[in-house]
């Protein structure tokens, strides 16, 4: 298996130059006017192919989220589950190389609770590990929106994606992975949904909206028609918290580490420690003492009535 060529290289491949020279044939002979539109800029062809898979023992919600993502990306392939072990990276790399994928979304579920998402550019690209929060699948969100399966989404990014190198990198990866290639065979030729990627509070929030334009306006879209446009949410919803960015696919040197990240395990452990029985009792005792000190009893006027 040869390495996948870079896009820039692919565009300058000599093969295409040769193909260009040949005039087009019609039924009656050679066509004279060969369209020469490509010579201004090299041909760019997006050959994105995304592997979507998950770890074993994933819970149903996260699995449904994965299936939702699969239904949103016509250029992806779903594969069988992978054991979530140390060697998962090697396994996945092998799989990716075997099938010639150019990127991968790996949903890793740990302890039946926490979902991590690996967003990987293959074979040499960086990989980002996210913690996925606030997961809502399409099924559980009873939202009224719906859109064509396989129509190309419009990707909207909040402007703070361009502020820092890490966000820039993540944005580029999202554009490549979540954007559907233009001439993909499963693509439908209309645009009726829009993805929102927005950074709020250091997390990337994802939303998916249907674009609904009143029907009579569709034939003659003018400014008026666009003004009447509304959006209806389709789902799913999730929120990505970047943990680490690695240099190569599923591993390699760490380029970025989220300094604010605290793993859910740590949070749970601390919670448990804090919520222990003993500490609760101690706290109750001190609270009682404070209460008694702050509200002293009035001296009893009949206290020494029967003393004699």
């Amino acid at each position, binding site marked *: 298996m040869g390495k996948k060529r870079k*896009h820039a290289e692919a565009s300058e491949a000599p093969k295409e130059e040769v193909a260009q020279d040949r005039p087009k044939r019609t039924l009656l002979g050679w066509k004279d006017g060969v369209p020469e539109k490509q010579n201004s*800029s090299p041909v760019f062809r997006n050959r994105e192919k995304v592997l979507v898979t998950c770890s074993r023992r994933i819970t149903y919600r996260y699995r449904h989220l994965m299936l939702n993502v699969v239904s949103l990306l016509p250029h992806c392939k779903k594969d069988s589950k992978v054991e979530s072990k140390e060697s998962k990276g090697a396994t996945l790399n092998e799989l990716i190389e075997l099938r010639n994928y150019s990127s991968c979304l790996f949903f890793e579920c740990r302890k039946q609770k926490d979902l991590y998402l690996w967003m990987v550019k293959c074979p040499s690209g960086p990989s980002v590990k996210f913690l996925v929060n*606030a997961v809502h699948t399409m099924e559980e969100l009873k939202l009224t929106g719906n859109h064509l399966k396989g129509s190309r989404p419009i990707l909207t990014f909040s402007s703070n994606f361009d502020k820092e190198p890490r966000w820039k990198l993540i944005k580029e990866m999202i554009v490549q992975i979540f*954007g559907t290639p233009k001439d993909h065979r499963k693509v439908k030729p209309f645009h009726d949904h829009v993805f929102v990627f927005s950074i709020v509070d250091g997390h990337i929030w994802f939303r998916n909206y249907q674009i609904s334009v009143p029907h009579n306006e569709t034939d003659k879209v003018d400014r008026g028609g666009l003004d009447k446009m509304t959006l209806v949410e389709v789902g799913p919803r999730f929120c990505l918290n970047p943990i680490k960015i690695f240099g190569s696919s599923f591993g390699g040197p760490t380029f970025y*580490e989220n300094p*604010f990240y605290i793993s859910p395990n740590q949070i749970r452990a601390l919670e448990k420690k804090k919520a222990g029985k003993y500490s609760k009792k101690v706290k109750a005792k001190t609270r009682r003492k404070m209460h008694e000190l702050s509200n002293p009893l009035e001296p009893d006027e009949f206290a020494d009535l029967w003393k004699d």
Partner: protein
Amino acid sequence: MFQFGLALPISNMVALRGKEFQLNEKELEDGNVGGVDDEEFESESESDPEEVAVSEPAKNAVYNKEALLEKLDDIAWPQNIEWIHKLTVDHAVEQEVDVNDDLARELAFYTQALDGTRQAFEKLQSMGIPFLRPPDYYAEMVKSDAHMLKVKGKLLVEKKKIEDAEERKKAREAKKLAKEVQAQKTKERAKRKKEDIESVKRWRKQRQQSGFARGKDEELDLSPDEEKSFEKSKKRRTGVAPADRSGGFKRKGGNEKGRKQREFREAKFGHGGRKGMKKQNTAESTNDFKGFNKDEFSASKRKKK
């Protein structure tokens, strides 16, 4: 409205780095493990020194900007590719959105999406590419028909719930009103009755004062039993069956259940007619030994012997 309504429970589930952390600590300090009030904790947690330490960034965190940018250059698409390949729109965010305010957050996302879509559509339009789905273009959708049916069902159920609640409320109010109206009516009726009696009394007094002058015949006939005209007359009505001991005053029909019961009892125990004939022996009953146990009788006889 529908979407936003759904968005509400999110913030409680969002485990946001420091926030959840702070929440738990504060909660325990206050000692009320049960009731969680988010806003309160948010506002209080700001001043606590312990939590500041927790949400402080880790010092040894790696952030290799050069390597990141290099990698970005590595994977990036060529700069001069047409926009149609990317379909990306950037949206300038005016101000920071509060993450825990669900409505504000969702609104921010919505405006971003709407604004982005407008820009994108303008670009597409300027390119002259058809981009909107014609109404007669049918193809597979992301959500199946079964799913959409469920969604519709849920909407209908919610609508019905609201309607039912409104109806109940209306009925309650109507009942209250009806009660008042009824009370007023009875009051009025009592008043009228009193007035009638008063007027009759007045009239009698007048007649007495005038010395029972024979003016109008009808009035004279009426006078003896005028007082009893308000009560039911005890006289037997005409056309009443002689067996009816109530003299035709018993309500006809009565309530359905009671009548049925009566009929049943009469069929069972008999009603009217002579009872004597039923209790006398006949030739048949005399010869019928069904009621006796012959064997037992003879056995006891033998024992005695």
